[in-house]
């Protein structure tokens, strides 16, 4: 039977405690945190930088990843690599990433996320750029949905953390020139928002695997906190049915801070994918 199951069955919860559980799942400041998918950042990068397949984590035998932490992390890394390839319309490599992701999904008990309909869409539509991106996005949705419905927020936390580190690794290495390239450096600086949300999300879980990932990410916080904060006047108005939000807080990153960040990201990625997991 196709499965999309929780790691630990927990079907005897009391109905009356339900509301309290939801409350306690929130962070200290009573706020939930959303983590964008890697594809959104790559769409922005595509406007300025060319595709470099050497930045994707190489496809390798995933049998060596035996613990659920290792599998979740490498799964997040490959999902990000798939999104990168899909945004840049790289059909051949994307097919390979789909295959390895499917294999890992099986290991993580997420086979229902890769059903026959999705497999057939991949086979039939992979040569249409829009479809490639849509299928990549749909498979990401399918995986997250499966995890959400099975209360596997801790797996989402690991997948999202690894996916973000991989997308940051690709993004920081894609920027070929840092001189006179303030716009792109500031684009990387914007990731401070995502970092804050990610740390908030991780903070909801106290298992050992997540704690160790969180510790790995702490160094990034110091760097993000050192960025210069600026403000543009805010406004919000509806134009033709669409709310247009202007201005707000933004961060400025110096070339030195960028080089430092790039190094930290590479180190974390090495820890996540290497023998130290």
């Amino acid at each position, binding site marked *: *039977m196709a499965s999309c199951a929780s790691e630990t069955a927990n079907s005897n919860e009391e109905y009356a405690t*339900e509301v309290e559980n939801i409350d306690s799942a929130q962070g200290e400041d009573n706020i939930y945190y959303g983590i964008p998918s890697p594809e959104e950042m790559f769409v922005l990068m595509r406007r300025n930088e060319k595709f470099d397949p050497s930045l994707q984590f190489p496809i390798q035998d995933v049998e060596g990843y035996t613990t659920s932490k290792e599998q979740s992390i490498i799964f997040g890394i490959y999902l990000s690599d798939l999104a990168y390839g899909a945004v840049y319309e790289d059909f051949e490599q994307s097919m390979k990433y789909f295959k390895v992701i499917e294999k890992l999904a099986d290991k993580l008990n997420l086979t229902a996320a890769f059903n026959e309909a999705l497999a057939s869409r991949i086979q039939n539509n992979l040569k249409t750029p829009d479809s490639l991106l849509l299928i990549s996005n749909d498979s990401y949705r399918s995986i997250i949905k499966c995890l*959400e419905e*099975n209360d596997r927020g801790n797996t989402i936390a690991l997948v*999202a953390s690894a996916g973000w580190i991989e997308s940051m690794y690709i993004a920081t290495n894609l920027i070929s020139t840092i001189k006179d390239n303030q716009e792109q450096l500031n684009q990387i600086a914007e990731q401070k928002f*995502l970092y804050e949300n990610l740390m908030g999300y991780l903070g909801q879980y106290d298992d050992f695997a997540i704690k160790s990932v969180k510790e790995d990410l702490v160094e990034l916080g110091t760097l993000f906190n050192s960025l210069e904060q600026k403000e543009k006047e805010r406004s919000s108005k509806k134009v033709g049915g*669409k*709310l247009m939000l202007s201005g707000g807080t933004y961060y400025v990153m110096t070339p030195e801070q960028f080089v430092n960040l790039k190094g930290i990201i590479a180190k974390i990625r090495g820890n996540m994918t290497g023998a130290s997991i």
Partner: protein
Amino acid sequence: MLKRISIVLLFGLMICPVISYGQMCNGMHHYCTKMPKFMKYNSQSQSALMVKGMTSEFSLMVYKGQDYKIWLCMDESIGPDLIFKVYEKVEREVKKEFEVKEYEEIMGECPECGGSGENDGDQCYGCEGSGTIGTGEEREIIIKKTEVVKEMQTEYLYDNSEDNYSMELEFAADQTKKLYIQITVPGEVSNSRLKKVDEEGCVGVLIGHIANSKRGF
């Protein structure tokens, strides 16, 4: 609505056999609407179990260069309206007035002069005019001071109660932002520990995005 829940449950039973009742709200947002084909699902979509009178919020990161759309849905038990606000947290410099306790010495009349001499430090000179001298005792005084401090403030950007309680919102930002989506279920806050079925229900917030590009031919 009952039909939707039944479909969700049936689907859940088919592929996710271990879903408990307590997890029913998880992923509810996937069923809010059929998203237009050109839009991509945003993984920051959320679902939660809420009760009447409750306010819950989540943080959403939005990129410049993308158009976003939010759809809200809920169980009939807590409908038909939801109050939905979008806000930003803004760090602002504000003038804060605060009180400081200080102590001052209590002054007494110059003893040698019977209160009519001149005071110079601890000494009293002459017996003309009025003089005072420190008694060695202190009293508490309150001084008001003003200081500029940084404070996080809430700046509301959208409130659906001013938009016919719309359950959809399309928006875009000219720079990457961290927004907060705040949802309130209208009604009385129940003090009962055991929530009644008709006081609670699932709320889903489905978010879609698409890279904004030039429209037209």
